[in-house]
C-alpha cells in the first residue's frame, strides 16, 4: 500500500525519538517523566524494528516488538512499585534529591 519511503527515514525518525527520550532522561528531575522518556526510547526502537521487519519481510522483528512490550510492561510495573516506595520514604520522586549514595 505505501511503498517508497526510504528506510533511512525510519532510522532517522526512530533515532530522533530515541534521542528525545534520552535528552528527557538527562534533563528532567521527575522520576516518572524520566520513566516515560525511557518508554519513549523503547518505542523508538519498536518503530525501527517494525520498519526493518517490513523491509526484510520478516515477522520476527514484529514478534520481537511483542517481547519488548512485555518487558516494558514488566519494567513499568516494577519501576512504578519501586517509585511509589521511594515516594513513601523520601516524600519525593525528584531524582536530584536521591543522591545520598555517592563518592
Amino acid at each position, binding site marked *: 500500500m505505501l511503498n517508497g519511503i526510504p528506510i533511512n527515514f525510519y532510522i532517522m525518525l526512530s533515532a530522533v525519538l530515541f534521542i528525545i527520550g534520552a535528552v528527557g532522561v538527562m534533563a528532567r528531575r521527575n522520576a516518572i517523566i524520566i520513566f516515560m522518556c525511557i518508554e519513549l526510547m523503547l518505542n523508538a*526502537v519498536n518503530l525501527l524494528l517494525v520498519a526493518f521487519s517490513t523491509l526484510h519481510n520478516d515477522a520476527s522483528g514484529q514478534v520481537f516488538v511483542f517481547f519488548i512490550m512485555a518487558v516494558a510492561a514488566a519494567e513499568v510495573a516494577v519501576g512504578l512499585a519501586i517509585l511509589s516506595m521511594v515516594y513513601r520514604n523520601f516524600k519525593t520522586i525528584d531524582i536530584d534529591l*536521591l543522591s545520598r549514595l555517592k563518592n
Partner: protein
Amino acid sequence: MKGLFIISALGILAMLAEIFKFKKLLYPIVLVGILAAYVTNFMEWGQNNMSITMFNNMIHFNDMSLAFSGVILITAFFWFILANDYFEQDHVTDHFALVLFALVGALMLTSFRNMTTLFLGIEILSIPMYVLAASRKRDLASNEAGFKYLIMGSFASGFLLFGIALIYGATGSFDLMTIRSFISHANGDLPSFFYAGVLMVLVAMLFKVSAAPFHFWAPDVYEGSPTVITALMSTIVKTAAFAAFMQLFIIIFGGVSQSWSMVLAVVIALSLVVSNITAVSQQSVKRMLAYSSISHAAFMLMAILANTRNFGSINAILYYSLAYSIGSIAAFTVLYNVSKAKNSSNFEAFNGLGKRHPFMAACMVIAMLSLAGIPITAGFFAKYFVFSVLIGTSFKWLIILAILTSAVGVYYYFKVIIAMYFKEEEIHEEVTMETSHVLLLVLTTLFTIALGIVPNYVIEIFS
C-alpha cells in the same frame, strides 16, 4: 538445559510456598534443587546437540554454556548458604522466587542463541535485581539503590534494543548464527549502521558489566543494596553478564572486532584507572568492593579484547569469573558478619578482627589476596590467564597499565588486612558467625586455594 528448567520450577515453587505453607521446607528444597540443577548440568556435558531443534536455536547449551552455568550454579549454592539468615525476614518466599528467577535469567545468558533470548535473559536477570536491590523497604539507601539501578538499567536496555534493532536491520535476523554467517559472508561490506548497532550493544553490555564510563551505577547500587544482594550482583550477575558479553563479542562479533576492539581497549584502560584510583579513598569496604568489581570487570574485558580463537579467552573468562565469584563470596560473607555486628561496613569495622576472630580474618586475607591476584590463590591464575592471552596481541600497553593499577589495587585490599591485624579495635562488639557461614568460609577459602594450586580442572575444560 534441564538445569534451566529446574531452576525455573524452583522459582515457581518458591512463589507458591507461601500459599501452600511449606516455607520452612523451602530452603533445603532450594539448596537441593540447585545441586540437582548442577548435577544435571554436569551430566549434559559433552552432548553438544541439545535443544537446537527443540527451540529453533533460541537457546543452546553447549559445553561452554554448561561451564558458565556450572560457575553460576556453584556460586548460587554458596550464595544461598550466605543468604541463609537474610531469608529469615519477611517475604522470604518472594526473595527466594526473585533470586531463582534471576538465576534463570543468568542461565539464559550463558546459553542464548538469539537476540530475543539475550534480551529476555538480561531483563529476567535485571528486573528481580532491581527489586532485590530495593528490598530493604525502609532503608533509604536500599531504596535509592534499587531506584538508580532501575532507571539506569532501563536506559541501558534502550541502547541494547536500539543496537539489536540496527543489527536486525542490517542482517535481517535475530539468530546469532545467522548474524555470524552474515558477517563472515559480507566480507566487511556491511552498512555502517550495523557497526553502530554493534557498538550500542557493546555499550549496553559494558553497562551490565559496569565498565567505565558506564559504571556509575555500580558503586552506588552496590553500597545501597543489602550486603547479600551486593554479593549476588558482584558474582552471579557479573558472571552471567560476562558469559553473554563473551558470546556476543568473541563468537558473534569477533568477525568485526576491528570495529570495537579499540573502543573496548580504551574502556578497559579507563575502567582500570578510574576504579582502582577511586577505590583507594573509599571508607566503606562494601563500596571498595564495588570499585574492585569494576577493575575485575576490566580484567575480564581484557580477555575478551584478546579475542583468541583457541579458547584462551573463554578459558580465561571462565576461570576469572569462578575465581572472582568465590573470592567475592568469601569476602562478602566476612563483610556481612562484621557489618552485622558493628553496624558499619567501613574499614574501621574490621579493626582488630585478626585478634578477635582469627579464623574470619584469615579467610578474609585469603579472599583479599585472591582478589589482589597473589599466588597461590585463584585470583592469581585468573590474572595470569588474562595476561597470557593479551600478551600476544597489540594491546600490550594495557598489561602495563593493568600492572600499575594492580599495584594500586593492592593498596585497598591490603587496607582491610592492615585494619584487621594492625589497627586496634575501639569499641569491642562481639562478631559472631553462624555455623553455616563458618562452613561457607571454609569451603570458599579452600576452593580459592585449591583453584590456585590446581587450576587444571577448570582451565583444561576447553583444551
